Each structure stands twice: as structure tokens, then as C-alpha cells.
């Protein structure tokens, strides 16, 4: 009996080894973002974009190490808490994952980039790389920059640069109202707006600049009255989530019919909530574009995304760059385990982004430079958001936006 067991075990082990050799190597990426709670849509949408990109652009074409390896996303739910994220980071590292992706909330990103830097200082032979796909606080690639952090989204300053280009080109705008949530990102948006407007259109008067408590305002009507009362010709806001919906609906309900420039005024139910009223009024500044699709390849890529994930939106085009750029870096190094070499390969990499045009991972601060677009809510676009019959259409397209922008980053390289 004992003997039989032993034989079976041997056979089983042999089978396993043979199986492992036949299968491709899995290169795992830990995806640490909110997958439950009020911001779950953001995380779920991000994860689906990663999975789609990996399938379409890396695994199926065999683009990683000549098809010898495949990417695999391993989701970790951080409930959008910095503390929880650090625990999940530890869990991911314990599982042997050395590639970390995160993006929702700059607060979480700051905590992670510090934790990653600390880990890498203590374990120089076993480093971890942090791919930030959407946290946009400028500090992450300025004062807080570090070698192991790479930002794929355009930061708040770059977006404001493109946004104010659009405003500067519109001579009808003479008064601007800036309103945002009372925390680091809202303040960063407000100060960038002031700086760029002063530089590009000194004649524009900023008639309002205020911060409201984040997530606490039940009814934005009084704010809307102030905005209308100020005679503003445009509104700039960095609001997201419920604060974006509340502000947008109140402002439009108060009879404001001029442009509302936003960072996050679309998808996740927001486009549907604005509906017809927002057409021609709501603008969004972001990396890349979905409408119109920049190329036939992009068209096919977006179409198959909506086939695979009919309930979600391709709301963050820059996220489609992370996996292909990482794959290119791994191919250059020749293996997926030398994280340091991979990080060096990513630095300065040029990439033809499927939705973001020519994209460069700037060497000086690890900030991706790519096409940034100002999009307007338009009915009847090819790829609609929230199944609402309307979506965001690129109107002002800035290629290689802010490619020469200054950075205070003093990168220390290992």
C-alpha cells in the first residue's frame, strides 16, 4: 500500500514537472486598486483595461520573450486605503510578485512609492518596480520622484497645460471659475490653473477659486448660484466621483451653458447622469483618445474591448501602454526577473501607444510624455460611455504634451 502511494506520488510529481515545462512562463503583475467599496468601478475598469491589453497586445500575439512567457494580472483589493495597500503590497511580494501596478488616488500612490523605495534600499538584490497608471499628483514625479516609480498617465500639470491651451484659443472666455475638492489634488489643480492662465492669457480674470469639503456636499446648488452669479465664461474642476456629478448637475441646472472643464467628468455613470444637458458643455482633459479612434488598429482594439467588457468603459486610454511597454523592456533585457535592468530599459523608452500616439517615458523623472486631448461630450460617437448614446470626442489634440516641462526631480539611480 505504502509502495503504491509512493509510486503514485512520483508519477504525479513527474507529471507536474512535465506540465510546467510545457506551459509558458507566467510573469505576474500585482494590480493593487479598489475592487470593493464606493470606488470599485474605478478599480474594476482599470483591471479590465489591463486584462484586455495583455490579451490583445501581449499574450495572443506572443509579444513577450518571443511567446515563451505570458503576463498575468493578479488583483489585490486595497479599498482605496493607503494602509490596506501597504499590506497588499507585502502580500504580493510574499507571493513572489515583483511588478506592482496601482493608480487610483495619489495618496495611495505616495504611500506605495515610499514603501517600494524603502524595500529596494533594504533589498538591493531583489527590487520591486512600481507602475503607476493613473495617480496624477505632480509631486510623484517631482519632489517625491524615485527610480522605481514610473507614471504612465499625464500628471495634473500636463493636463492643465493642454486644458489651458484650449481655453487660451477661445477668445470668448474672459472669466474663469476654479472649484475643487479640498485636498492635495484639488489644490494642485487650482494652483496649476492659476499659473497657466496667467502665463497664456493674462487678460483672463479668475472670478472664483474655491475648495469645497470632499465628499461632504449634499447639494451643490449654492455653489452653482455663485458660479452663475460671478459671470464666469468657463468652469475648471478636478472633481471626481459623486462630487463631479453633483457639481455638474447643479451648475447646468442653474442655467450655466458654457464650457465646464473637468479631469474626470465622464464614464462610471457620470456621462449618463449628465445626459443630453452635458452635450457640448462638459469637457474632459486626459491622455489619449477613444473617439475618434486614432488608427484602424486602435479601432479594432477598442471594439474588442467593448465586446469583452460590455458593462465597462475604456475610460483611461493611457493604461493600455503599461503592459506593452513593460513587455518591450523585458524583451530588451531577455528575462523577466532582472527588475533593475527592466527599470533601466523602461527609462527613456519610446513607444507607439495604441491610443496615445508617440509616447516617451521621460528619463529625468519617469513621467510618460504622450498625446493629451481635450475632449467634449458629444452625442452619437462611435464608442459611447455608460451606454448613454453619447461619449467624449477629442477636440484639441496635443501631441507629446509638455515634453519640455520642468521637473524638480533629482533621480538617484542604483
Amino acid at each position, binding site marked *: 500500500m505504502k509502495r503504491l502511494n509512493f509510486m503514485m506520488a512520483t508519477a504525479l510529481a513527474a507529471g507536474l514537472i512535465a506540465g510546467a515545462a510545457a506551459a509558458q512562463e507566467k510573469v505576474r503583475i500585482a494590480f493593487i486598486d479598489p475592487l470593493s*467599496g*464606493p*470606488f*470599485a*468601478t474605478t478599480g474594476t475598469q482599470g483591471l479590465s483595461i489591463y486584462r484586455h491589453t495583455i490579451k490583445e497586445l501581449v499574450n495572443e500575439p506572443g509579444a513577450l520573450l518571443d511567446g515563451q512567457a505570458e503576463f498575468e494580472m493578479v488583483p489585490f483589493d486595497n479599498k482605496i486605503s493607503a494602509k490596506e495597500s501597504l499590506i497588499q503590497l507585502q502580500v504580493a511580494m510574499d507571493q513572489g510578485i515583483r511588478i506592482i501596478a496601482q493608480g487610483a488616488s495619489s495618496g495611495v500612490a505616495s504611500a506605495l512609492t515610499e514603501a517600494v523605495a524603502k524595500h529596494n534600499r533594504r533589498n538591493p538584490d531583489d527590487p520591486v518596480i512600481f507602475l503607476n497608471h493613473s495617480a496624477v499628483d505632480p509631486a510623484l514625479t517631482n519632489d517625491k520622484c524615485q527610480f522605481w516609480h514610473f507614471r504612465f498617465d499625464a500628471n495634473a500639470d500636463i493636463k492643465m497645460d493642454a486644458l489651458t491651451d484650449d481655453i487660451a484659443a477661445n477668445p470668448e472666455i474672459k472669466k474663469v471659475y476654479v472649484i475643487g475638492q*479640498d485636498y492635495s489634488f484639488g489644490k494642485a489643480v487650482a494652483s496649476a490653473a492659476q499659473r497657466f492662465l496667467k502665463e497664456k492669457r493674462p487678460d483672463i480674470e479668475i472670478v472664483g477659486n*474655491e*475648495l*469645497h*469639503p470632499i*465628499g*461632504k*456636499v*449634499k*447639494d451643490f*446648488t*449654492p*455653489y452653482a*448660484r*455663485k458660479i*452663475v*452669479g460671478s459671470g464666469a465664461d468657463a468652469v475648471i474642476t478636478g472633481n471626481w466621483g*459623486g462630487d463631479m*456629478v*453633483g457639481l455638474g*448637475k447643479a451648475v447646468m*441646472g*442653474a*442655467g450655466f451653458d458654457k464650457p465646464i472643464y473637468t479631469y474626470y467628468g465622464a464614464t*462610471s*455613470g*457620470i456621462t*449618463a*447622469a449628465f*445626459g443630453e444637458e452635458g452635450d457640448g458643455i462638459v469637457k474632459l482633459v486626459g491622455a489619449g483618445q477613444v473617439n475618434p479612434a486614432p488608427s484602424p488598429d486602435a479601432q479594432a482594439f477598442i471594439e474588442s474591448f467593448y465586446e469583452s467588457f460590455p458593462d465597462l468603459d475604456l475610460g483611461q486610454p493611457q493604461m493600455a501602454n503599461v503592459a506593452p511597454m513593460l513587455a518591450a523592456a523585458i524583451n530588451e533585457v531577455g528575462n523577466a526577473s532582472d527588475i533593475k535592468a527592466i527599470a533601466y530599459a523602461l527609462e527613456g523608452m519610446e513607444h507607439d501607444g495604441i491610443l496615445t500616439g508617440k509616447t516617451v517615458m521621460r528619463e529625468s523623472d519617469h513621467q510618460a510624455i504622450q498625446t493629451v486631448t481635450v475632449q467634449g461630450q458629444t452625442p452619437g460617437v462611435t464608442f459611447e460611455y*455608460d451606454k*448613454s448614446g453619447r461619449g467624449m470626442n477629442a477636440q484639441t489634440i496635443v501631441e507629446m504634451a509638455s515634453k519640455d516641462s520642468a521637473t524638480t526631480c533629482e533621480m538617484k539611480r542604483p
Partner: protein
Amino acid sequence: MALFLVNVLDGFVTGLLLFMLCSGLTLIFSMMGVLNFAHASFYMLGAYFAYQISLVTGFWAGLLIAPLIVGVIGALVERYGLRRVHKYGHVPELIFTFGLALLIEETIQFFWGKSQLPFSEPAALDFAAFSIAGNAFPAYKVFMIAVAMGIFLTLLYILTKTRIGMTIQAALSYPETVQNLGHNVPLVFMCVFGVGTAMAGLAGVIAGPVLGVFPGMAVQLGSIVFVTIVIGGLGSLWGALVASLIIGWMQTFATAYNVTAEQVLTAMGFTKPELIWDHPLQDLWTLTLPQLGPILPYLLMIIVLVLRPQGLMGNRES
């Protein structure tokens, strides 16, 4: 002056909406001594049901049917939940309603997801009723005012002028005596709970298009509702109305005027320190009234509790 008038109207709408929630809560409290933590969740249920119904039949059917469903659910909760817990005392009741609130929120997220739902006002009311100095006042808000006033007058009439109202009021103060007189007091309780939650549901239906339909909508209003009934006096309908209007106006006006701490302090004769960004009192000097707005109701509640613990219109110590 024009802006002042607009703000008076906006504050009135906010106050009346708050009142629709508070009236049910305060009635339930005065009858059963139960602080229903799940009250705002019934408000949320109303909005979600109305959204779902509106997909099939349009807004108006939702307006009628959703509060009815919510009221029936409320009555069932009282009959098969609260009444059983009641005999164990007030603390288990509190915990029961608290748990119910969490349960409702999770259930809603399970069925409708976590995003905002596109619930908008009916097309018939989607126009500006009038506008004051460029500020449009939506017809929908006029409608909200009408519904809330209608509810208030109906409630007032039923409670003070009809036989049912007399029974309710009597059951409120002397439940045993009323029971001995042959009235079915548990049934009265169940009905009051049902009607109270139905009103919360109705508030949800009419607030949904304005304040948004999302899983956090109950939490957002939950605490302010309790503050309102404490200020108004637990169990007092008039108190709930007065307190709701005060809070509505207070919040609207606080947000509408950019009074800064700097102006106030300078007027009081203090001088602003030159290097304000490194100053220990930086936060005090840079404070503005809109930032202070959300905490004003809580401040008012503390003042009321200190000076008049039974609330503005409350007539009994609880």
C-alpha cells in the same frame, strides 16, 4: 439682492426635502421610542425603486409606486423585525436598525452596482420655471416644494383633525390605555412605521434626480436627519419643519457667501500675521464660511441641547 432671493428659494427646497425625511423619523420616534438608523436607507430604497420603475413606465408611475413598496417593506420590517426585538429593550432595537441600514446598502450595491444611476427629472418638468438675474430656477424644484408642502399639510390634518390622528396621538402618550379602550395599538405602530418609511421613500424619489442616485446617498443624509429632529424636538412635527428650514437656509447661505475668517478677524481689530503660511494660526486665518457650512448644523445642535434640551418645539423630556 437677486442672488439673496435665489438662495432663499434654494434653501427652502433643501429644507423641505429634509423635512420629508425628518417628519417620518420623528413620528416613528415619538411613537415607539425607536431611533430608526435605517431611515435614510428607506430614502435610498425609494430612489432606487423609482429609478427601476421609471425605466419601464416613466417617472410618474415611479413616484406613486416606489413609496408604496418602500412603505410595505417598512411595515413588514416593523411587524416581523422590530416588534420581535422590541421586548429586549432599546439597545437591541438600535442595533437592529443599524444592521438593517448596512444590509440595505449592501443589497442595493449587489443589484444596482456602485456607480451613479442616470435618474433624471421627467421631461415635462425639465425646463426653467423662471430665472432671477440669470439664475434659472428649475420647474422641478417648484414641483418639489409643492409635494413637500402637500405632505406637510396632509400629515398635519390627519394628525390633528381626524379620528385616526387622535388615536395615534393617544397611543403615543398612553399606549396601554388606548389598548384597553379596544384599539389595536400594534397595528397603529405598524402603520405609522409604514407611512413614515413611505415618506422617506417619497423623499428619495423626488430627491433622486437632484442629489443623485448612488449607494452613498443614505450615509450622506443619515446624520443630518438626526441632527434636525434633535434640534426640532424629538416627536414634534412642527419642530421638524422649523428645524429643517433653519438647516436648509443655514447651509445654503453659508455656502453662498464667501465670508472669510480674515475679514471677521480684521474687523475685530486683529492684524493678519505677515508670514501666514508658517503661522501657527494659519488654519484659523484662512478659514472661509463655505468650509464651515457643513458643521454649522452640528454646532446648532450642541447649542440647542445646552439651552433647550427638549429641542425647539419639543414638549417632553425624553
